[in-house]
């Protein structure tokens, strides 16, 4: 199949705002699927609610657009009944870590063979820009008009601690690395969690002095520290500068997975 064939062409154009990063993530995901040579009937996309979760509507194979936060629980049912299916879950920071937080940690604990792409735009985009559990400290949103005064989640640390076999973080700037991470995510058995920092110029950038999409992407490029470098710095006793964040592969292990044909 060509890359274009993985798109549900009659649903395009998509509903995303100009400058949104979600299209980039969808493109990287479908590119990884295409590179892996999956068949349409073997591939299922599942999502929850929010901007991120509309992505499943633009893929051409079977897709299930579910309820807010529950995509991983729906995906658990699909995968356990049909373990040979390649099941990818699109979720967002609010969907995955607020309303879906419990399903998230338990899907990681079960280490069920799903590939989870979490599009983290630091905000509730679909409802117009409210603060999420991943909104950076101090950031302005419609529900944190004086600045976010709660600490954000580190979703990758959460996935690691809960037991996922593969954990990586990239951004919408790092398209090659992201595509590769999703490809590896499919190949590693067990739960693969790929967090993608993306720009939401409409609801996040506009309130936080990054009105242009390119400003947010520049911010990702400037503040993303490769894990190898961060590890080197840490060994030398240097801690991460404020505003910087680590990208790369955090976990790749082979703990017993759930929902793969061999172990059934």
């Amino acid at each position: 199949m060509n890359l274009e064939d993985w798109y549900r062409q009659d649903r395009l154009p998509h509903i995303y705002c100009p400058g949104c990063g979600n299209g980039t993530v969808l493109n990287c995901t479908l590119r990884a699927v295409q590179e892996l040579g999956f068949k349409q009937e073997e591939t299922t996309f599942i999502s929850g609610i929010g901007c991120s979760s509309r992505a499943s509507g633009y893929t051409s194979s079977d897709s299930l657009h579910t309820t807010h936060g529950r995509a991983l629980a729906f995906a658990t049912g699909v995968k356990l009944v049909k373990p040979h299916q390649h099941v990818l879950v699109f979720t967002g920071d609010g969907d995955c870590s607020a309303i879906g937080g419990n399903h998230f940690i338990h899907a990681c604990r079960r280490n069920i063979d799903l590939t989870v792409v979490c599009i983290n735009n630091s905000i509730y985009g679909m409802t117009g820009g409210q603060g999420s559990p991943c909104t950076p400290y101090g950031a302005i949103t419609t529900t944190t008009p004086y600045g976010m005064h709660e600490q954000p989640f580190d979703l990758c640390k959460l996935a690691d601690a809960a037991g996922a076999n593969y954990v990586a973080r990239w951004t919408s700037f790092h398209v090659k690395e992201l595509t590769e991470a999703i490809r590896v995510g499919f190949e590693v058995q067990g739960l693969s969690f790929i967090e993608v920092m993306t720009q939401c110029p409409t609801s996040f950038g506009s309130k936080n002095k990054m009105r242009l999409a390119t400003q947010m992407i520049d911010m990702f490029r400037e503040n993303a520290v490769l894990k190898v470098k961060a590890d080197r710095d840490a060994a030398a006793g240097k801690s991460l500068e404020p505003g910087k964040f680590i990208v790369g592969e955090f976990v790749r292990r082979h703990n017993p997975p759930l929902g793969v044909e061999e172990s059934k």
Partner: protein
Amino acid sequence: MTTKTDFLNGNVACAEGAIAAGCRFFAGYPITPSTEIAERMAARLPKIGGTFVQMEDELGSVAAIIGGSWAGARTMTATSGPGFSLMMENIGYAAMTETPIVIVNVQRGGPSTGQPTKAAQGDMLQCRYGSHGDYSIIALSPSSVQEMFDLTVKAFNLADRFRTPVFLMTDETIGHMREKVNLHSDVEIIPRRELKEGELPCAPDENGVPGFATFGNGHNIHITGLTHGENGYPSTDSAEVHEHLVRRQVRKIEDFRNEITDVDVINPDAELVFISYGAPTRTVRQLMADVPDIYGHLNLRIVWPFPDESLLAFRNAKAFIIPEMNLGQIAKEVRQYTNVPIVIVPKLGGALHTPEELKKAVEVAKTVTKPVTEVCL
């Protein structure tokens, strides 16, 4: 048909009914007094090529069985009141996406944590109306261990025939009571109709039910809980699409009430008529055995959609006496369809009605003139 006779509690008979009906995926969360269903499925499913998973909560349980259903399996979960409340979100999703699933509610005393080990029938209206928006569902109510087996089988057939969530609304008494039960291994299976090539995934057939596009069979469909057109794609701005979809999903069940109805009509010429379902049916039957040929009895094996036309069978009825283990939930439904005076006999706390209590209700019913009279036991 091969049949094995056993002596089981209702919950175990329910699990065996599910397995006989071809259920091969169960997702659940422990809760009294339904847990034996999950335990039986956990022991049995792995040995027959099925899968059991214990989820993190009841929201996840319903989500998982909906996913499993789209992957092609007959799927079930079981719970009681507190878990049932958590399930309401995804029950609405199953209604909107027309997903066949079976949910067992072994009812206990509520509200809230209430009486975990005591029987009740307090979730009958929640079962019909608990999720937001307009929709319809099917609910069955067994009154014996044998019916726990038989009606579970029937629940799966109805779920697939009508593409809807189907509820087995039982209670702690029936779930934990042991009786002789015939376990049939070769039960009638009415499979869901697979989507045909060229058919749209959400376009109804002559019964108002679309073909089912099992995931992995090459249909390449999109399923969403958003309002959607016949192609399955979201279409949230059109009043016409929304009204057409919701009305069609309700009518595919409500227009087929007479096909779905499953009742016993006993002594239709009687003047004093009991209406009951589930555990109270047992007390009514005892009274009718003790005092034969006087009373009428309408026993509901299917409560939703409510079998309103069955009321017409009792032409001489001067009163309907309705014992329920709640404050009169189904009595309200009966009231909608009849001008015959109603005597409600509510009982809370977990114990069954006694025949003496029903005799007391009979005395009230003999002289009743008001539309609704409550008997205080």
